[in-house]
């Protein structure tokens, strides 16, 4: 079963990468870019047919490793 996970910085956490990307895009002439924030993306394939169980597993991965819950949020999407 396949999932995608996005991990993003919480709202009040500084995003140095996003900031630089934004400045660069602005200086490339894209003036109407209001904001851009950068996060991580994972494509996960697990050997489990029961959706509920599978989702629980993915959630565990996020909490244990993929996201740093102090500064990041995560979102799981079944593919």
């Amino acid at each position: 079963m396949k999932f995608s996970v996005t991990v993003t910085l919480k709202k009040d956490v500084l995003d140095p990468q996003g900031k630089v990307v934004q400045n660069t895009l602005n200086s490339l002439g894209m003036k109407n870019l209001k904001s851009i924030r950068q996060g991580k993306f994972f494509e996960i394939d697990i050997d489990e047919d029961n959706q509920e169980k599978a989702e629980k597993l993915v959630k565990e991965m996020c909490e244990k490793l993929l996201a740093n819950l102090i500064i990041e949020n995560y979102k799981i999407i079944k593919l």
Partner: protein
Amino acid sequence: MKSSVIVFPGSNCDRDVAVALKKMQFNNQMVWHKETSLPKSDLIVIPGGFSYGDYLRSGAIAGKSLIIDEVIKAANSGCFVLGICNGFQILTETGLLRGTLLRNESLKFINKDINIKVINNKTKFSSKYKLNQVLKLNIAHNEGNYFTDKNHLDELKNENLIAFKYCDKNGNISVKSNPNGALENIAGIYNSKKNILGMMPHPERMVDSIISNTDGVNIFSSLMV
């Protein structure tokens, strides 16, 4: 004094810090991350480098290793723990220190000599420095941009838990003397019991006058007092 240096796959300042510890007369042991017990030690050092390549988030994967449980136990029972650079990142990932280290503001790796100011010299790690003393140490990191929430920042200030701040050579703390964007120029912090120090600059690179200077010596030798 007995010390242990934890070695993760990808640690690369492990030898450097071991050399410094030996020079300061510590009786040091290297401890491989797959070990499940720590030798008896007064000081545990988590060295700099790129544990697990710093892939995912710097320090994240090392923070899940077997030996870390032992480090946490030892720290909670009062053992001194020093995390340098990647070691600092690992300590924040394990929760032994709070806050996190984000990408440098420039998004570039930075290696250079910088100045830091001793903000608290009343700890076991810093007693041989003078208050407000300006040190020249070396930084080498991608993620040294310290960040924490407002409450914790207040706590750091109120309880005098900020160890060092980036400054210029005259001791001025300003945006200009901040190499990586760290919150309030913070270069190193203590936990509330002050037995854990995490710092981005590398004291072990400044213990030999042929290579640089000896401003880093007292971090190690203070512990000997």
